């Protein structure tokens, strides 16, 4: 008799406890994702491959700045770059700081190994890299998504590759870093300015949240500054 009367009471108590726990969990946690995801495209075509050491310093800066729980991927831009195989290293850092530091060390070693003795490719598929980067960034589900392009922004495609279609970069910040001037740019600076402007238009038309060019590597903090 006692057991019969206590069972419903226990059931009610358990239900109340479960409801309270659910309420607390839903009330306490912030559903938004506060993590950052950065995808860095490194141009390895032609003479730009000589800038690899600068790319390494940028990767190191990103490793030192990103927090536990953030994601980072470094990919190369080659003749055709819309491919997972072009991703040199990728990691979502552990939420524990000590583990995240260990992962960062491993990441740095992997990137260093890749850049050692790298040769330049014939063509430069920046658009393919952007598409691959956007895919990766969207998959991370991070709250802030940044695509860093380490390139002179001179896209060169072979005759077979098709990239002249609208792309989707919604909610992604695109930062072009170390956009060096080519010899032809020096002859006619309008070429350089026109190239930058064309990319800006294309990126913003693709729904990007922001477009920014950083040529001074001392101001890399601007990668994470939002306008």
């Amino acid at each position, binding site marked *: 008799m006692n057991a019969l009367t206590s069972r419903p009471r226990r059931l009610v108590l358990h239900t109340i406890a479960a409801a309270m726990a659910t309420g607390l969990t839903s009330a*306490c*946690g*912030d559903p*938004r994702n*506060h*993590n950052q995801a950065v995808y860095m495209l490194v141009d390895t075509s032609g003479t730009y491959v000589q800038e690899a050491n600068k790319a390494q310093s940028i990767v*190191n*800066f990103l*490793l*030192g700045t990103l*927090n*536990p*729980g953030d994601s980072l991927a470094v990919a190369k831009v080659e003749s055709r770059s819309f491919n997972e195989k072009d991703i040199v290293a990728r990691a979502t850092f552990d*939420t*524990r*700081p*000590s583990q*995240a*530091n260990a992962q*960062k*060390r491993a990441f*740095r070693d992997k990137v260093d190994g890749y850049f050692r003795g790298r040769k330049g490719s014939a063509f430069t598929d920046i658009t393919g890299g952007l598409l691959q980067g956007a895919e990766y960034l969207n998959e991370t589900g991070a709250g802030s998504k940044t695509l860093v392009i380490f390139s002179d922004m001179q896209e060169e495609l072979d005759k077979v590759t098709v990239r002249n279609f609208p792309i989707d970069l919604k909610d992604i910040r695109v930062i072009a870093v170390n956009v060096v001037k080519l010899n032809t740019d020096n002859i006619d600076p309008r070429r350089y300015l026109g190239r930058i402007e064309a990319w800006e238009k294309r990126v913003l038309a693709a729904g990007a949240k922001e477009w920014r060019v950083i040529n001074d590597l001392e101001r890399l903090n601007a990668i994470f500054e939002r306008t």
Partner: protein
Amino acid sequence: MDVSRFWLIWPDSPALSLLALVLLAMAFLYAARLPMHQLIRAAGHAVGGPLRMASRWLLAAAVEINDRNKAVLLAHGRRELEKRIEREFERIATLVNRDLQGYPVLQRKLADEVTTIEEDYKKCGEVPPPPPDWVEAVAAIGKIKSGGGELAMSILEGINQSINRIHDKAIAEYRKSYEARHAILEKFMPCWRAIEKTLSQVDKNISGLLDSALSVDNLMSQYEQIVAKTDKAVHALTVSALTQFGIALLVMLVAIGGTFINFKLIALPMSEMVGAADYITASLRTSEVAALVIILVEASMGLFLMETLRITRLFPVIANLGDQARRRMMWVALTLLVTLAGIEAALALMRDMLIQDKQALVQSLASVQQAAADSWVGKIPTVGQMLLGFILPFALTFVAIPLESLIHSARTVGGALLMVLARGFALLLRIAGNLIRQASRVLVHLYDVAIVLPLWFERMASGARGAPARSDAGSITLQPREES
């Protein structure tokens, strides 16, 4: 047609149109004078009346708050004073038990000392035995003339020798006797010192008792004033509460500083335990909340510890617990506090390790030469952090004391503040109400100024008829005076 000129009766002569309109308006206003006056007065009363009522209500509320504050203050002061008097009596009881309980022994000791001194004194008073009777015989022989012959000379010589010998012996005995008496007198010294010491101790005890009695007297006079609810007592208690509030607030601010340091010590390592990527709000990490919760739990344990030790009395439930249950609770709180302090020390160590690891990573990323292995000097911050992590929870335990003072005094300070606010608002409302009523009167006068011509004609007509002036048409001073 121009919209701005629609009012022109004669479009060619605006002045004439304006004059006509003014006269027309005056006529209408004069016709509506009485109801308009009533309307303006009614509006003034309608707005000013509630404001004055609200002002009166606030004043009454302020009086009630004051009475309630006074009652609370007196009750609290009475309770505190009762505790202090109780403690003073406990002190007196301890003094009496400790010192006066041994008073019979002390008295016996003093009596013994006095008896010893008396006996010794009597011994000192003993005189040597009187000279024997033969002294008279010697005196008789002394009367014999020196020319009495050889026999007499021989006898006298013998007597002289005997007397000298006896004299020497007697002198020696006297000296011996005096020496003995001096020795007895010398023995007096420790007795005197002992008596002096005992008496000074008694004097000290009695002085302590007198001081305590004086303190009790003062407290009792204060208590009497509180019971009599005198203004002096209320004022003294209010000042005391304000002072306590200020001091407690200051100490609490210091404690908040300590809490912040404590938080900084454990916030980073907590991310190692609960993760650094979870957020409660946009800028508040779960790890930070966890660190804060640990600190708050420590503070709660400290509070319970103080409660179980009966140093503070914030929770009547704990104060009313039986001694055994209270002691158990004290040990539980202390154990938890020590455990949490140990955890904090470990977290402080982990913080240092994490920072060092991060520094090493940043240095390796920056391709900077790594710093040389640090000596024992480099260990000082680590040890310091660990010590802080362990000590701060115990230091924060004492926050319970100023917290209690703050809570108790905040009631008085808050009440006084509320009363001042209520009085201030009451004054403002009263001023606003009066202003509105006066404004309605001014409006009535202004209305009459606007229709001064019809009024003048009316007065002229009345004068011509010889009729008495209408009370409401003449001077405004004839209006019944409004109650202010």
